[in-house]
């Protein structure tokens, strides 16, 4: 780390400590939890975070963001195929939900975000299109049929297609027909498929070549994971070129989501009273869910925590370029505010309690933190 970089990093760590203090103060003033001891558990946890994370030049941050988030979601490499291979090997079903949220984009920036107005189901649709299309590719007409909005001009649909192609790093191939059957006119068909090197990785497990037809077909295993991995690999490789990854909105979206994931991972687990109705609710699974303190979701507490953390995540994942892209206007507070309400399909509200579902990424980040605390307490 150069001198300037080090200064920047220290500044972020100091800001983190300061803001956490502010959150603790606000938390002490109010209590919205109805579980005895919840507020105290949260205050204790925040104090531990404040004391341990900035230690040793933010070693714990570097370890958890670099090892857990970067390695699994945004591997540091310039080779698309290598990034793709590393991501696809570390994917799990639960984690796909997180990325789905990411693709869906922030509602506030929806009109300007990565996949225009076709987010939401875009990946599911692409999976269907590639599964049904011939030779593992989709033709532009098929895309228009699936994604076009009749209320918008074709120009926008074309732009939207190009956005998706860029977003997933797909490759275009052209087929020129001198005389088409209907009008005897020259026609250019554009096919979209995966880059050659990615196809090599997919071959066998996700895609196979039919010996008779000589065409590529998808296997049972081919699903949205493939697109999610390609999307992440594309971001990883082009992280220095914001234009190629959807601009500041993508950066803000990624950093918001991962800082929220980071915080969720570190929240203390609460033991609820055995008479608590949540335990009787059939959708509550005590083996893989835990109640997290409600006061953590208070606007006053969470916004102070998120702000420096979003910058830390941006700095660790994309360096100074990403840090600069983090929105620092008044809009930011609104965007941060809505960060509270994302990932709701992962952290479910059950009878008024926010429940964390123990998916891999939460467990692994939480365990790094737990290890260090245990190690330190043994040394003490």
């Amino acid at each position, binding site marked *: 780390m150069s001198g300037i970089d080090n200064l920047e990093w220290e500044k972020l760590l100091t800001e983190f400590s300061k803001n956490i203090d502010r959150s603790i103060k606000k938390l002490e003033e109010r209590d919205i939890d109805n579980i005895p001891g919840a507020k105290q558990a949260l205050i204790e946890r925040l104090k531990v975070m404040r004391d341990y994370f900035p230690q040793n030049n933010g070693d714990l941050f570097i370890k958890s963001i670099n090892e857990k988030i970067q390695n699994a979601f945004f591997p540091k490499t310039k080779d698309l195929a290598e990034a793709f291979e590393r991501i696809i090997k570390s994917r799990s079903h639960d984690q796909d939900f997180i990325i789905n949220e990411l693709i869906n984009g922030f509602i506030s920036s*929806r009109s300007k975000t990565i996949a225009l107005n076709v987010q939401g189901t875009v990946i599911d649709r692409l999976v269907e299109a590639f599964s049904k299309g011939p030779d593992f590719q989709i033709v532009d007409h098929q895309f228009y049929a*699936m994604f076009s909005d009749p*209320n918008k001009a074709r120009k926008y649909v074309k732009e939207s297609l190009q956005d998706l192609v860029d977003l997933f790093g797909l490759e275009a191939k052209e087929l020129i027909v001198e005389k088409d059957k209907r009008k005897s006119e020259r026609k250019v068909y554009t096919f979209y498929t995966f880059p050659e090197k990615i196809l090599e990785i997919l071959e066998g497990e996700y895609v196979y070549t039919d010996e*008779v037809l000589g065409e590529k077909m998808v296997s049972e295993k081919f699903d949205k994971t493939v697109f999610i991995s390609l999307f992440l690999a594309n971001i990883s490789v082009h992280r220095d070129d914001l234009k190629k990854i959807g601009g500041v909105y993508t950066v803000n979206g990624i950093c918001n989501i991962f800082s929220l994931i980071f915080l969720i991972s570190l929240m203390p687990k609460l033991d609820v009273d055995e008479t608590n109705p949540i335990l009787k609710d059939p*959708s509550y699974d005590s083996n893989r869910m835990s109640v997290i303190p409600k006061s953590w979701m208070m606007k006053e507490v969470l916004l102070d925590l998120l702000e420096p953390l979003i910058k830390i995540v941006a700095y660790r994942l994309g360096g100074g370029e990403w840090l600069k892209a983090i929105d620092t206007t008044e809009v930011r507070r609104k965007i941060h*505010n*809505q960060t509270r309400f994302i990932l709701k399909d992962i952290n479910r509200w059950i*009878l008024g309690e926010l429940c964390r579902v123990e998916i891999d990424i939460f467990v692994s980040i939480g365990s790094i933190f737990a290890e260090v605390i245990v190690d330190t307490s043994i040394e003490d």
Partner: protein
Amino acid sequence: MVREKWTDIFARYLTYLSHLVPILKETKRTVQNMSLEVMMDIKIFDKIKMDEEKRLVKRVRALSEFSAYYRGKVFENIKNFIYKYSEDLEPIDIKDYLIEFFDECISALQILINITNPDQKKLNSTYLYLLYKYLEDLLLPIGKNFEEIYMKLNKTSVNWYECQRYMMIPHTYYRETVDNPDFFEIPGISPKLYQIINNITSLYNLDPNYYPCPEDSNIEIPVILINDVFEAFIDNIAHEEQEAIEKICERLGLRVLDEIFLAPKYDFIDVLIKNDFIRENKQSDGKIRLIPQFSNETLILSYLAFVSLRRGFLSKELINWISMTFAFIIFSTILKCQLSDHNIFYPIFTSLKTQEKVIPYMMKLLCFNNYLKLDRMKIRDSVQYRKEIFNFAGSSIDCIKELILDLSEYLNKIRKKNKEGV
């Protein structure tokens, strides 16, 4: 436009299906009668296909095109199968497999053809009715009032909430307007509205204010600020929803108080208490404060119950989406139940070309009074629209896959029972 009768639609539904069975039966017989040596020379199939196509049969163009497509695919798949396994399998085994595949397809088609009957005789024992009823209980139950429907939904939501939610979010949501001049029309939930509902749920759980209940001064009801719900939306992108908040509230079981608060409707409070989504807390001043404890599904199920109760007032998009979901699940269930996963003809049934010939008519049949009770006049016939929604018909959605599996087990039970009865 003339309102089509059951018999008209059922006849159309059968048109394409009834052409498939003879093709399969004929081809099966041809394969059966072939010697093994002849069969292994795959060129013979091209010749048979050519001969078949030369036969002069008077049909409308669309039908003959479809038959040609179907026959072509059947022969293509047979050739591929023989070519692929000619080294690994004995010719006799290949032949057996082919015949087994034909039998499975014919039996699936028989169920599809006999799914119901032109005069709806013995309605309670028809496949369409039984499968529909099973789905109805899980996804869109009927009931005398809102409360009864909500209770039924809440009971099944433990296992099927994702399917229930899926059915409320049409993929053509961009065609809908939340603020339709027709107050009674109920649109589907757009992804943006889904986020708004999430916001409302979170705010009720986190930061409720309390307000004297207008209907009962002894009760304090939870309220949240409308501004808080929309605060996060920059650039006025939720302006339309904000303007239509009263209509949205109506569908969620909420109401606007003093133009700034969102509060549960008086009738809805009882339902919420019965489902533990609100608990009563007696205060020192003798008043009862109602404390919200919502789950993710609390308001979504309310929307769904409202849709189910007022199914006569649904938007065109929602009618198409709901009936398509039901029809798609029933169609896929019959295939799943009858065809083995490695059946070489499976892709022909799941291809867009086949689906668009069967599902739209099944959608219309399902709109009749004994079924969904939706306005079948609103089912779109446009090819473009069918492509748009069928291209995305739920096959890759995990919860729909699970539901198809569940329903196919039920179908197996019905078939077993029918056989025992015979």
